[in-house]
């Protein structure tokens, strides 16, 4: 099948890639770019394991074609840590035991990454509503909610420090 050239930014890096027009973003990321942190859990955009950040929005990468992301700015789990330091969200998931098998974790954290920019000081119920597009079969969510609150606290404190 003939390929189409797209240019996009993935985790801060500008790329030009030839893709088949029918290739889903999730397969493009996983197979063409070898960014396998983004997972596939259901193929029907229910589970959220494939959640990535596209142009400032959380997006399920199994529901969009790579060619639709021409010119887009994409962030995946691999783009969270900076200069060897974990992102506050990664650290919080670790400290609050917010993961078990780890399969939903990248999508869950990438959703939290966007959600906490939309709502930096969420209540537990707001987290439950705001992250309900991501399913987890292991944790029962309680520690994920704690982790998101923990990360929110860290990020707010860092923001206050930066402002001061």
């Amino acid at each position: 099948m003939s390929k189409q050239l797209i240019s996009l930014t993935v985790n801060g890096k500008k790329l030009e890639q030839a893709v088949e027009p029918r290739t889903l973003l999730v397969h493009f990321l996983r197979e063409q770019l070898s960014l396998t942190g983004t997972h596939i859990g259901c193929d029907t955009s229910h589970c959220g394991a494939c959640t990535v950040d596209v142009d400032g929005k959380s997006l399920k990468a199994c529901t969009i074609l790579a060619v639709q992301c021409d010119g887009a700015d994409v962030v995946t789990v691999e783009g969270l840590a900076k200069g060897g330091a974990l992102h506050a969200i990664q650290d919080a998931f670790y400290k609050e035991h917010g993961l078990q098998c780890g399969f939903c974790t990248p999508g869950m954290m990438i959703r939290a990454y966007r959600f906490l920019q939309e709502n930096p000081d969420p209540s537990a119920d707001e987290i439950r509503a705001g992250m309900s597009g991501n399913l987890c079969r292991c944790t029962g969510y309680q520690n994920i909610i704690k982790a998101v609150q923990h990360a929110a606290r860290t990020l707010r404190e860092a923001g206050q420090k930066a402002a001061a």
Partner: protein
Amino acid sequence: MNASITERQAALMGMGDSRLRKEDARFIQGKGNYVDDIKMPGMLHMAIVRSPFAHARIKGINKEKALAIPGVYAVLTADDLKPLKLHWMPTLAGDVQAVLADAKVHFQMQEVAVVVADDRYIAADAVEAVYVEYEELPAVVDPFKALLPGAPVLREDLAGKTEGAHGKRYHPNHIFTWEAGDMAAADAALSGAEVKVEQKLFYPRVHPCPLETCGCVASFDPVRGELTTYMTSQAPHVVRTVVSMLSGIPESKVRIISPDIGGGFGNKVPVYPGYVCAIVASIVLGRPVKWVEDRIENLSSTGFARDYHMTGELAATRDGRITGLKVNVIADHGAFDSCADPTKFPAGMFHICTGSYDIPAAYCRVDGVYTNKAPGGVAYRCSFRVTEAVYLIERMVDVLAQKLNIDKAEIRAKNFIRKEQFPYKSALGFEYDSGDYHTALKKVLDAVDYPGLRAEQAAKRADANCPTLMGIGLVSFTEVVGAGPSKICDILGVGMFDSCEIRVHPTGSAIARMGTISQGQGHQTTYAQIIATELGLPSEVIQVEEGDTSTAPYGLGTYGSRSTPVAGAAIAMASRKIHAKAKKIAAHLLEVSENDLDWEIDRFKVKGDDAKWKTMKDVAWAAYNQPPAGMEPGLEAVHYYDPPNFTFPFGIYLCVVDISKSTGETAIRRFYALDDCGTRINPMIIEGQIHGGLTEGFAVAMGQLLSFDEQGNIQGNTLMDYFLPTMVETPRWETDHTVTPSPHHPIGAKGVAESPHVGSIPTFTSAVVDAFSHLGVTHMEMPHTSARVWKQLQASGVKS
């Protein structure tokens, strides 16, 4: 500088500490290594052509169009597997299963052919291009109808066989009859009983649905004659044995690797046709072949759970003392008996159905039946059929309490096996290791102010304007886990021991290799904690490896809550072998006799002389350069642990629900879970496991269902229809514990991850039914969806 005892203890991060998880670093950075992440040079992709019909004859398969697609390498059918004798395979339950449908399909979505292509997109195109001509046959989806005289014969390959793997078959669609206990004694108890209750209960077909589906990457090296397969398997060593038996490749040249696994919950115990086909394709084509099923395939064709039609009868005295139990079950196993149970137990550990109660006479019988549904079933986050058993006894006790108008807490306390009765021999043949049910029950009732809840419920019932019905569910469950003693438990003849190999390195770090495989349970963290405490080495420097059959000692894998009860014991025993050798070395270094040494946290100390000691780290170094004369250098041990008995974790769960009288929606107001898993290795991980198990139990009780129409069409096999709770619906969990160690386990641990699933499901039913109990309702079938509860509201004449 001398660290204090407390500091030295803390430095180990051993048993009892909420140590953060070692495995997390890779998962939070997107560096997990799951099967679908594996890429090999020249790797091809396989996809499966599946049957649209539940029961049909295959008239012909035309591959031409598919093979004409550029990038398609092969289309394989049963006829292609026949010369290799791989078109059928043995199941773990002693039956056979079609790898690819042989002349006939037996369930919708059955594997009919596979295609192998350059990438998954071309493979999907090729699946569409394979033309299969079918002649539809009448489907049988109801196991009771399957047993009627003249019912269509589903398994023509078994025609005339009146003897199955588990004895007599009395009908062509009958698989086995399995019995435990004393029927005459149970009948006598029932016929002479002051009070009798009988209840039919249907535990519907559900699916474990881990977030990662099943898959593998098979790679056969034709030059070396070696087969390496990465697989989503909860039991890689058993798979290696099966693959070797099927393929004829010596076991030494078969390597099965379970890499990171995205949840299992029993779904990843069986050997599925997709694995076998990918292996065959790799052998035929001489290239690595990847197969990863999609969610629809996962829900439609791989190991379902439950599907038990149960009838329970209880005999009791008028004051509520249970005197007898009788249970009959029709078990729908689908088209092939690929149930994952220890070989001699076709109904698993269902005979734990006397529960936490001292019942003098009991009998149970399970009949397995073939239907035109996907084969199974697996133990969905439970020990084999224990969820069904616990559901049965807990519902029956509630029904009896209601009939006698005795409170459900009181009737339980009255019938509990008392603390001093342990070890307790049950009427159905188990020896319960330890328990203290009364203490646990009291703790829960006090914590939730049970009398206060009952008073609130009475007030609400008296108030016609109250918009909700309030229900209180209570369950006191006992599990049987840690299969199991090899004298009774085996898989395909291999005893159900488990294993651990520990090597302590010269500088005092260590590696442990295990026969189990984590699917999220945190083995790398908790196993190291056991070694840390046993050997006095910090858990931080102890690596744990599992899942690779080429490096790990043989073990039976992780399911049925067996990792801690069996492999955890193997760790302790291997550690103790090392400890014994280390003591000899320490005595040599300190120039005293072994009897003059005491062990303290991380060191051997000379009795009565606080200044003379050698740490385990010192001993490790000495083991490699100055062992005592005549002693082999090195510091390592292997232990294969064959448990003397199962372990019996227990718990008391209480749930409060408020059901809307107008919509039937059930709000879970409170869920209080007290678990006793014996010795606790890592409280943080235990709590996480309990949260997860409770959530899976909530899913089963309140919404999960694989249903079929009369033609055998599956009615909901995507996450659009199959209920996985989101954060919004999931209740808030409260956890608590007591500690009653197992007397026969080296560290007293019993296993925990499955208790919350097993225990919570009947608790939800108990709560929902309780909301209607004053209206004469004694039982409601799962799942308790709003629609079903709303129907009950109408049937009971509840006005909103």
